[in-house]
């Protein structure tokens, strides 16, 4: 066997020597094209991540690195009552706003997924809030929800209702933030759901109609199951985005009254920008990352299950 091997070796080596030059050239080209991506990831993902880990292990004052505190900043996450309150508020916001956005967005998509007069114009109008910046929407919210004669209260009072303390009452301030988010992001759910609906084969729904199924039966037993993977994906995207809500809270309520609308991203911002406590802010960032990662894992496994992809 060894003899054969020694005899065959040059034979095998000969065809390799020519392609190896080609392969080396191909390798260079491959690396050349990969390099920008690798540099990008190293610079903008790996380096910030490592730097954030370093920050989270140190105390800071005025942005200047101080003593090494080990896991001290992470221990603070466990005992910081303010952070825990803000997490509850964030979850309340995410659950309320995303749930309503999903229901309303999908309902609108079902409504617009048919022939009707002015459908194009209505679709365009319905998606307009999506293109506004959240900061602008926050400031617009101050005008809309202004308690002394603002448009929303004026409308409610015209209908015989009483003045709602939108921005001065802890409960209603939360509602105002949620309503603004719903107003801005329902069009996203609507738009993607509509695209999904239009991609469904009409044959199935038409067949069910021929078989005598009611519209709701078609919806529940045919359309929604077919749409499920897409709906889970929309839910995933919206939930992750909602966890990072910041701009509208800052501009509309500044986290108040008291801490009623304080969300974790704003708390992290304050910790870092106002108190220059970069180490603890970094630890909070990792907490948010962990929450979003868990959420992503749960929802993504659901999506993969729906698509029937191997796990």
């Amino acid at each position, binding site marked *: 066997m060894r003899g054969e091997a020694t005899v065959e070796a040059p034979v095998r080596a000969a065809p390799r020597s020519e392609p190896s030059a080609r392969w080396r050239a191909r390798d260079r080209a491959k690396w050349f094209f990969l390099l920008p991506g690798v540099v990008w990831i190293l610079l903008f993902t790996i380096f910030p991540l490592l730097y954030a880990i370093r920050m989270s292990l140190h*105390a800071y*004052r*005025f*942005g*200047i690195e101080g003593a090494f505190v080990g896991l001290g900043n992470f221990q603070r996450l466990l005992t910081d*009552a*303010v952070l825990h309150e803000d997490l509850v508020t964030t979850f309340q916001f995410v659950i309320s706003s995303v749930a309503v956005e999903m229901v309303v967005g999908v309902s609108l998509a079902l409504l617009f997924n048919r022939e009707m007069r002015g459908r194009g114009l209505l679709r365009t109008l319905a998606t307009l809030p999506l293109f506004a910046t959240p900061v602008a929407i926050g400031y617009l919210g101050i005008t809309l929800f*202004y*308690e*002394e004669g603002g448009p929303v209260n004026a409308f409610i009072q015209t209908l015989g209702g009483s003045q709602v*303390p*939108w*921005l*001065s*009452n*802890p409960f209603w*301030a939360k509602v105002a933030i949620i309503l603004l988010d719903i107003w801005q992001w329902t069009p996203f759910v609507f738009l993607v759901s509509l695209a999904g609906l239009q991609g469904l084969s009409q044959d199935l729904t038409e067949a069910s109609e021929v078989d005598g199924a009611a519209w709701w039966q078609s919806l529940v037993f045919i359309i929604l199951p077919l749409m499920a993977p897409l709906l889970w994906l929309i839910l995933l995207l919206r939930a992750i985005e909602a966890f990072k809500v910041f701009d509208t809270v800052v501009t509309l*309520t*500044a*986290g*108040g*009254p*008291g*801490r*009623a609308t304080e969300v974790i991203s704003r708390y992290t911002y*304050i910790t870092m*920008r*106002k*108190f*220059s*406590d970069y180490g603890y802010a970094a630890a909070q960032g990792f907490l948010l990352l962990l929450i979003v990662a868990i959420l992503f894992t749960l929802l993504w496994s659901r999506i993969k299950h729906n698509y029937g992809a191997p796990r």
Partner: protein
Amino acid sequence: MADRKQLELARALLAGRIDRRDFLKQASVLGISAAAADLFLRAAPGARAQDSGPVPPVVAEPCGDDCPFAGQTVTVLVNTGGGEKGSIEGPFHEVRAEFEAATGATLNIAAVPFEEHFPKLIEDMASGTGQYDTSVAGAWWLGDLVAADFLLAYDEYYNDTSGKFPEWDYDAVLTGPRSLLEYGGSKYMVPNDHDGQVLYYRSDLFADSEHQAAFAEAYNYDLAVPTTWDQFADIAEYFNGKDLNGDGEPDSGVVLHLKVGQQGMFHFMSFSAPFVIGPENPKLYWFNPDDMTPLVNSAGHVAALNKLIEITKFGPEAMFGWNLPEGWSYFLAGRAAMTFTWGDLGALAQETAERGGQSTVQGMTGAGPIPGTNGYFNVATNAMVETAEPNMVGNTTGGSWAGVISKFSKAPEATYFLLALMATKPKSVVYGYRGWDGVDPGRTFHFLPPNGDNSIEGYEGGGWAAADAEAYTTAYFENFGAELQFPYLRIPGTFEYWQAFDVRLSEAVTGQSSAEDALNAAVADFEGITDRLGRETQLEQYRTSLGL
């Protein structure tokens, strides 16, 4: 030849072909004096058309060919106030042309939202970048800025008598606000704005005989300017729900601006001072100077917060979400009988629609010192102390926004020139008359005889109603000159302590927690901050600030 050029330049200005800034630049080259330039600027159509109140005179002579700071750039960091007519920010735009013509330097104005100002400044200084030569800083930032050695004391420049810098009088600043300009015996803040809160009330309502009779019948004493918070609460309750501006709609007894994160905590400081501070305890309000234990949950503080919560029931609920302009607008529209806030409101009350303002209460805006109490809780002895006369405590609460010079400035002398120019008497007098510029009075020349050397005619010339001016200047003089003063906190971390305090107070006034719980929570927050910043260091700084 030069005369002809000067004449052409003046014609160009008067015809509106060049603006104020270009005029001053060219005037500098042609050697036109400051006095002559000022005359031309006042006659220019732009000056007449704006008519947003008096315009400060040109003080600095154009430098011509011999400019002391030619080629240098001064960048000032200031709260966004609304551009050229913005609070605190506006005067910098106004003085820019004059400064540039007098020094040859360029002035950049970097305006940022209030919430971003301190972080940006700290970032710049901590990194040693020196992007900002000066910041119009809040006085409570000094503890951090000086302790970190980020500021340049200006004693040397102030004492320079060579004529290099505009001259202004440090001793003209009243003792209360003057104490904020220094830190550790050195001068850091060049006087500009002088904050303190006083009581404002609708003098027309208080003088109304029907209201007087009805109030006396309901409360068994005469309607008068309140000297205690109990009286204030009665009056607020009486006027609440009545139509105070004749529009047929019910109005409010009081209005405040209590949005979280927007300086609402200052209201509680002014309000609570006479509940805690008194002749036997003139200084202890924030911490125990032995071990840095917070004192803000004492019986006096709790009583004060409960009283404040009671009083807010006589105002619009919306004020818990209002910032300064919204609260002030409500009073200026005649919709509240009383408020307590900064000097801006007294001056804004003079700015009627004809002057581009929104006041409907000119000539009806009385002012007085912040009300007191009939007793206070001495935190040093843990005992209530009754007082025969109302226990009144003056205050300098607020930012007293004034310029500080960055240690990393590449043009410190030019920077001081700018701040000194704005601190000169001719300019500061006019700033004090106006409401929109956010600069409040605090120097002798802002007050009327015998307290100062201004005059009713001066204020009337500045657009004021005589009665309002008299009440306003008297109230501020009494406030700043009061024997007892609210102890202004200026230690490292003050920004953090007050931020935490602000949130807890907001929770209490909006019913999310009781006064006691909110203040206990504030104490816990304070302890956390102290521990993080170092208890020993904080204690040392606090004791120094108390003169111990």
